[in-house]
């Protein structure tokens, strides 16, 4: 009965298990594309539509990259949606007030970083749960937007901003190229750098991280500021896309970003997660909603399908985990 098992074999199994989630996501995505291509051969599998999906997934992906870092560190950021909205609104307000577009963009990025900074400082200094603090700042950001705009979109006519949101470089939408560039950077930082390793350590065991000499407070503040910056970038792109600083543009992005991260395999409990998983998560969710539109399914049903998907992916994961537990 006592089979001899070499270290090499165990290592292969271990790698398989770790890669499981990623393989699963890729298989799911390919399956979805195949099924939808068969069902709607003319409309779905066209380059226009596929680029559309990429475009539609770009903004949520950018903030979901930040959300990945936050959730890997054991936190959560509910302010990302309104932080995104506020960035666009501030930029629009500043352009309208006569500032140069560059300065206005910096203003938009700045305000989002500031929200991130406030998140990080309050969470670490008052030792409050991230859920509460970021929920509060989401409300504050939202309030500021409505105070500034009275609820109406502020038009943006700057060609650069509009270009970022709408133009193409060759066949590629510029916003998607920005997203892919940010993806490469985020994936590198989380996977290959000291910063990424420390983020995982903090999420996995904050006490052990602190006792290992990691400056946990500073690190967490940096994470929230960086996520703020990503929200700011997403906000500028969004404003360009809809030609305005719209106070309603951030609605739902908070939960959508969290959904992408979770489907992508990041643990709610922190310590584990990948940026590529998050990107795949965002793409899968987008493919589903795009496919359902093409099949004339009502938008309300799309939301239900997304909900079912989130739960089933995680249930599958949890099931396979508990079966593999030694």
């Amino acid at each position, binding site marked *: *009965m006592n089979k001899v098992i070499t270290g090499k074999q*165990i*290592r292969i*199994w271990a790698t398989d298990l770790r890669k499981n989630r990623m393989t699963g996501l890729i298989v799911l995505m390919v399956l979805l594309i195949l099924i939808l291509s068969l069902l709607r051969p003319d409309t779905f599998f066209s380059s226009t539509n596929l680029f559309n999906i990429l475009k539609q997934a770009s903004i949520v992906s950018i903030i979901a990259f930040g959300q990945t870092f936050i959730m890997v560190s054991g936190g959560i950021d509910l302010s990302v949606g309104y932080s995104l909205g506020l960035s666009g609104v501030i930029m629009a307000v500043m352009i309208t007030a006569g500032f140069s577009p560059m300065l206005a963009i910096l203003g938009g990025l700045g305000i989002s970083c500031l929200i991130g900074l406030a998140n990080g400082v309050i969470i670490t200094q008052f030792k409050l749960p991230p859920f509460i603090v970021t929920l509060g700042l989401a409300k504050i950001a939202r309030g500021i937007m409505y105070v500034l705009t009275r609820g109406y979109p502020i038009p943006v006519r700057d060609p650069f901003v509009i270009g970022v949101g709408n133009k193409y470089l060759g066949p590629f939408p510029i916003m998607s190229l920005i997203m892919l560039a940010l993806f490469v950077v985020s994936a590198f930082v989380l996977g290959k750098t000291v*910063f990424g*390793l420390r983020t*995982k350590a903090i999420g996995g*065991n904050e*006490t052990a991280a602190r006792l290992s000499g990691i400056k946990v407070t500073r690190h967490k503040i940096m994470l929230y500021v960086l996520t703020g910056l990503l929200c700011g970038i997403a906000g500028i792109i969004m404003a360009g896309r809809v030609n305005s600083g719209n106070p309603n543009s951030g609605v739902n992005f908070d939960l959508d970003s969290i959904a992408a991260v979770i489907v992508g395999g990041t643990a709610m409990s922190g310590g*584990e997660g990948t940026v590529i998983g998050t990107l795949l998560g965002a793409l899968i969710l987008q493919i589903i909603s795009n496919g359902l539109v093409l099949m004339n399914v009502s938008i309300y049903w799309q939301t239900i399908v997304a909900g079912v998907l989130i739960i089933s992916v995680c249930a599958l994961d949890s099931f396979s985990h508990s079966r593999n537990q030694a």
Partner: protein
Amino acid sequence: MQSNYILEMQGITKRFPGVVALENVSFNLMKGEIHALIGENGAGKSTLMKILGGVYIPDEGSIFLENEPVQFHTPRESLAHSISVIYQEFNLVPTLSVAENIFLGKELIAKNRLAADRKTMEAEAAKVMAKLGLSNFDCSVWVKHLSVAQQQLVEIAKAIYNNAKILVMDEPTAVLSPNETGLLFKLMRDLRSHGLSIIYISHRLSEILELSDRVTVLRDGKFVVELENNRDQVHETDLVKYMVGRDLKDTFPMRENLEFGDTILEVKNLTKKGMFSDISFSLRKGEILGFSGLIGAGRTEVMKALFGYYPVDSGEIFVEGKAVHIRSVSDAIKHRIALIPEDRKREGLVLVLSMAQNMVLTSIDLVQRYGILIKKQFNKVVNSYIEELSIRPALPNRKIKDFSGGNQQKVVVAKWLSNNPHIVILDEPTRGIDVGAKVEIYKLINALAQSGLGVIFISSEQLEVIGMCDRVLVMHNGRMSGEFERSQVTEEGLMAAAAGLRALNK
């Protein structure tokens, strides 16, 4: 098949992917006995008890309760057969009251009302607690406000309330002070005299000999021997021999060279309100300085303050003769201090990270350039530690939580030694690890001192302190209460000082 046993486990085999955790193990228990189950880490004790508790389902083998064959598929089924298992991590809800915890899952409902009958539950719970020797216990307080010893009693109360016939206790004394341990033993004997059968897992051999009627030893997932504990015939050395499978001559390896160098660390009047006050001591190069005392005496807190984890209110610290300000852990690391914390899972390791990632956390500068991890360097550092500490299996990318306790402890040590410390603080480094691994840790501590480091060794086990340390300081209630040179230290002296009975005899 008739027998006198209340419980028989026969031919139990349990395999996990890649390991055979138990192979054809048999175990039996008589009514009204305390039966110790011992073995090194990974010997299979916990797995066997988890099978009894319904957590794991055995691949082969059978279980008989009072001669009836039974099968447990869930913990609930085991509980329904009057088996209660108290794991090292308690199964209590910290934010529920003592009574609510005892009645969890079978709450009493008030007559004609929808609400739980809190009053009756509290009264019933108080009766159970009184049986355990705690009269007038307030069962309405939240469990999280109780001491560890009291929480343990709540666990026992739960078992009694469930009419447990078999009680399993996994290392119950690991978290208790000597005083509390004494009380627990009294209670266990009391329960035994009322016909309860107790299975008792422990690493403390002297306690086992003191308490148990019979001893079963497991090694590498196999049954080794079952002994009657006739007080005079069984000795600790016998148990060790059965556990490790070879003679273990010197538990405390000797050091050859006992020359000390200059003072490397001096602490003067260190105070933190509510934790400790007026702590002064010094440490020389090459010296092993013991810190003895009861759990909660403030030793760990002093060390964590010294390590920059807690800010202090007043006091001075000198490292190699120079006054230093340590405000954060990274300051302490700069001054070449290392602290190997007492609770490796809670404080020493990031369980979801790999073994390799855990190893480099403290010495990240060795493996990075411009903030980017250099794979080649990374692998080099990690492999050298795997080699040096002989960690098997050598799988650096496997998650640390999938390694045994002894290996995890080695990784914690590696993590800190990779940082080239001059002062090493070890907080209870041998707690909860088996005899073989303990000796390895002792050898390591000796080697550290031999190479000229200053070593501070916190331990609640007096024999260990006496066997290992050149000088021993004792703390009681946040203050220094005794200091002994190697030649003067005795168990009685340490006990008295730990209890605060003796003034500083300098």
